């Protein structure tokens, strides 16, 4: 198997594992970490695409590399925002959960 194939399979597994955890884990912190696992899989896929697109004497296509840096910054800010919200929630309620589905819990107004 080529190295591209191995990396592509790893990326796919990361995305799959992450998606599974997002859907099965009720705890918000685990969901946030699972999003980062999916994110890493997607970023690895960018690397695979860059490697496959190597041409014109370059070792890799530079466009996906530029995109992945932006992607990492965005994922980092998203994680920071989510963790900040979770910390805020943890200060106010002992066991932070995502609550009931009908939105009728607590005082929204």
């Amino acid at each position, binding site marked *: 198997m080529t190295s591209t194939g191995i990396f592509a399979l790893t990326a796919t597994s990361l995305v799959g594992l992450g998606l599974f955890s997002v859907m099965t884990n009720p705890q918000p912190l685990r969901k946030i970490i699972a999003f980062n696992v999916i*994110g890493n899989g997607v970023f690895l896929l960018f690397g695979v695409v860059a490697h496959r697109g190597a041409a014109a004497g370059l070792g890799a296509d530079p466009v996906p590399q530029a995109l992945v840096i932006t992607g990492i910054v965005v994922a980092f800010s998203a994680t920071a925002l989510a963790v900040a919200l979770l910390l805020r929630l943890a200060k*106010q309620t002992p066991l932070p959960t*995502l609550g009931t589905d009908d*939105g009728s819990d607590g005082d*929204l107004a």
Partner: protein
Amino acid sequence: MALQTQTTPDGYLLILAIMLPVAGILLSLIFGRWVERIALVLLALSFGAAAAVFAAVWQSGRPVIYVVGGWAPPLGIVLRADGLSAAMMMTAAIIICATGAFAKGEFAEPSRQAEARGPLVFWILLLAIWSALNAIAVGNDLFNLYVALELLTFAAVPLVCLKGSAATVRAALRYLLFALLGSILYLLGAVLIYGAYGTLDITLLSGRVGAEAVAAIAAALMTVGLLAKTALFPLHLWLPPAHAGAPAPGSAVLSALVVKGSFFLIVRLWFDAMPGLLTMAAAQLLATLGAAAILFGSVLALRQQRLKLLIAYSTIAQIGYLFFLFPLGVGLAGSDASGAAWTGGWLQLFSHAFAKAAMFMAAGLIAEALGHDRIAEFSGVGRAVPIPIVTFALAGLSLMGVPPSGGFVAKGLLLIAAVRAEQWWWAATILVGGLLAGGYILLVLGKALGSADRPLVLKGSPSRRRELIALTVALAAVVLGLVPLRSSQLLEIGRLSAVGVALR
């Protein structure tokens, strides 16, 4: 079709529309004490930029284009405002400026203090949402649009929990987790597209993408991601607590504009970037989810005890109508009635934006007067605060689809399109949805206009200025009803897929 990749003389307006709100954010961070004044000035300037883009597209009848840095795609990024972008930018401009005027005073800087966090955050987030919406409207590169979409999410989520109570923070966290799932799926789709076609430029993609498996998988991933952000049934769970928990001006912007940003991208994706991929089966699936959203959202709205939650569930239902655009647009492709579906779908978006913004403002004013928003205790409210109730009723016309209102023209056009496309089941859903909307609007009005069994105790009196602003926004939804009942020329300007759709 000649591909335009030259900056047009008025292209700099697009940069202004995106960057003026950003300038306001930066200035506010430095001069936090004057945040409200800075924001109001920058809101006015940005309105000018958006109106100039609208006028330029309207008059010239061609898209406004800006090639960033002079690098043409596939290497560079192009900003492109077609008729749809112009209409979207104008709607966002009017609603955000009205919201700013409505919030003035509620989020004023406290005198004698250094600065307060609430006002600072509110005005910065409002400007950030506007900048992101403009970037989404003019973006022509799938990755650039991803960044704009993330900016929109990051600006919208904190707006939900401005009050800081545990319930609103929980709603914000749940919104963020749905949105993150949406963004990551969108990004996964974008990388697959880049891997297969070597570009992310929508104009270039529209000529390259055919009915290949990789394109179908990418489109499915991106669509599901965007649906989570649009809150289409069954991915709507985050919306009611989030939209009901935000302060009234925040709810107005979230419900009127933010969920529409991701819908806008779904249409860009299917109709502009991948017109060769849009099959009838995929379109019918989207519309089925839309129909489920209409029925489910309306029935749940009928069952709500709180006014703000009722309005939030009504948003879920009204979003459903937007997805009829897909099967009706495909079914009528090439026929003379295809414009009816296209105009009807977009007019539904614009009229719902005005109606819902007005409705949330009215709900905020009613809650301010009563100190609560429990519908069961609304008896006599119509006499105590008449203007917000009239605002609610006028906005309700659009949601029900009763003339004269933008909602009537929109739903009328969709009905005509459904009949012409011989998809009568969507026509039936539109009619049932209108009846259900009538149910939940009249439920509130009937209670509010009834006489009080005991005298109402008012906790506060909303200022006349804010009441009139809410009324003006509701009137804008009514005025949209004066749009003629036929396809709009403006929305057809610069459409990429008009060719592709007609060929099929």
